[in-house]
């Protein structure tokens, strides 16, 4: 027994330098034991922890992941994962890929929700995931308790990413905003895009892309034109284009400076024009 204790002491001594840094991330919570994983996962080894799901996190400028477990001595264990991303829009982006309008939303961080066995939220450039395999009210309450403590620590910057303000709010479907860092609509030439679903006269999707410059925006538009046959392309005005994309449906795209924005899947021209005008106003 004494030997085992010494071994544990030696192990902890070796690892203490590394662990103390990580521990700062994880709040101490009354009534809960905290075990902080010494290993910090980065882009090279995220696969070790979350398998194939890692690829998507890497698209969202993932920096590192810290991991800890909380146990209450009464049979509940909560796993805490703190994903650090390059900035807020990327943290929101990966969060938005996993949320659903049907979830129960909480006043936590920038936004968060609770489902059976998990609380997920983003705050600043962190995406925080708390989970338990235990079921029932006790486990769900435990998640809420721990989430609240994490919120105290991380929920300082609770604003939504400013990029989302470019999306018109009227008739926007709640919780449908997304940030897509690359390959929007399957096109590699699309730069980062914010997008949302709308339910006006009929449902459609709206997107806004910020290219690096007005020249880059022109280039991106040209690549979009190249991706479709000429007969499927119509110039409506100097900066408005109608595209029948065989892959993604009807797109009306517009340009303003370094921005490209558009409406996808809306056959009502007046509706398209109205929303594109709203985006243009938001850009000013």
């Amino acid at each position, binding site marked *: 027994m004494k030997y085992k204790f010494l*071994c544990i002491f*030696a*192990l902890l*001594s*070796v690892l203490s330098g590394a662990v103390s840094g990580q521990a700062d991330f994880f709040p101490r919570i009354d009534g809960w034991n905290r075990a902080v*994983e010494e*290993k910090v996962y*980065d*882009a*090279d080894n995220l*696969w*070790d*922890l*979350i*398998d*194939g*799901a890692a*690829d*998507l996190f*890497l*698209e969202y400028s993932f920096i590192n992941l810290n*991991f800890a477990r909380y146990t209450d001595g009464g049979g509940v264990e909560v796993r805490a994962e703190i994903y650090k991303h390059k900035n807020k829009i990327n943290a929101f982006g990966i969060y938005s*890929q*996993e*949320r*659903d309008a049907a979830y129960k939303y909480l006043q936590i961080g920038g936004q968060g929700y609770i*489902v059976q066995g998990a609380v997920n939220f983003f705050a600043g450039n962190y995406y925080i995931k708390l989970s338990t*395999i235990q079921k029932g009210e006790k486990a769900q309450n435990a998640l809420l308790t721990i989430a609240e403590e994490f919120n105290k620590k991380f929920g300082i910057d609770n604003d939504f990413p400013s990029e989302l303000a470019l999306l018109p709010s009227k008739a926007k479907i709640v919780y449908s905003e*997304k940030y*897509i860092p*690359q*390959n*929007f*609509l*399957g*096109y*590699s030439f699309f730069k980062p895009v914010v997008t949302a679903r709308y339910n006006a006269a009929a449902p459609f999707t709206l997107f806004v892309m910020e290219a690096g410059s007005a020249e880059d925006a022109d280039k991106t538009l040209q690549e979009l034109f190249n*991706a479709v046959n000429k007969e499927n392309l119509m110039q409506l005005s100097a900066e408005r284009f109608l595209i029948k994309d065989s*892959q*993604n449906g009807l797109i009306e795209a517009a340009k303003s400076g370094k921005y490209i924005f558009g409406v996808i899947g809306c056959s009502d021209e007046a509706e398209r024009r109205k929303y594109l005008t709203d985006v243009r106003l938001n850009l000013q």
Partner: protein
Amino acid sequence: MSGKELNRRNFIKNTLLSGAGILVSSSALANALPDKSAKDDSLIIKRKLGKTGIVLPIVSFGVMRADSPALLKAALEEGMVHFDTAHGYQNGKNEEMIGEVFKDIKRDSIVLSTKVQPEDSDRRTGKIGPGTTSKAFLERLDISLKRLKTDYVDILYVHGLSDKEGVLFPALLEAVETAKKSGRARSVGVSTHRNEPDVLRAAIESRIFEVVLTSINFKQGHLAEVKKAIAEAAKEGIGIIAMKTMAGGFQDKERTIPINCKAALKFVMQDENITTSIPGITNFDQLKMNASVNRDLILTDKEKADLVLLDNKTGGLYCQGCHTCTPNCSKGLPIPDLMRAYMYTYGYNDARQAGMLINELGIKGNPCRECNECNVTCAKNFPVADRIADVIRLAAVPSEFLS
């Protein structure tokens, strides 16, 4: 040649420099003739998936994102039929998108696979916990089927196993057998990206699993061992599907320098024991590139050169034991042995073996700490001092705490 001598570098050399044609079947060569028609399915190279009765093109579709349904439809037009997802991807959004896209097409015209993670598993180690039950696993499968809008999946994997105990975990064996008997899974398998050889051999031993989805790529430190185990499994009728074939897709951590993904994919698929691969596809360019491999598996001279260059640049994990380093080390350290310990740790995920080796060498503490400057040069450009500092810590950890 002994098993130990069958290292990754030898495999790459054998494949790239001794003539890829030797390793490519005559049927594959015949199918690799110039592309007469992108729509002509007869030109697509297909292989049998073990004893499952499923036949697949050598390149399939790893569904990574839930926001590009158009890509899935385009993949069908390119002749891809197999789509791979997982219960946990994007909280189920990935499966939901697949279900929505394919809801109206003939079910037997596509091959769907999903991976279900055991409820109580330590994702850091892959160890299965006692809280894992057949019932919970099947409940997750039922949720996946609902999302996919189908009554069955063609391949059901137990997700992310990394050792024999996990593969032979009774509740999981019971679950997959039940899934198959009830018609919810046409075939069953395991997925692994750690200790792959052990998992492959355990799958053989199980006499239940029919498919193994394994990571394999040209950068893998233990590539030779993985291929050896794959050959054993294939001989026993297990269908092999490859993942992580592009080794992350980039040369650098910052993901700014892409590797030649097509070459990396072709390299893996030279092995006829592997039925298909599931590279993640997120845009039409990738789709076209991957689909082209379905019709042309022969590595071009440039692709071969790119792979050799990448292998030299990244160095990998395998120390070739050339001893270029040892004369320059002022401490006279057994550097090749220490590099081997590093490979055990990060290539094989076997910290216990690494710790034992370091203790056998009798090294205490970090011997490099006392040197202001490291004069060691490595033929493979390993950061020798960094790797020693990293791995030497294991010497202080009792073996019962290492795995």
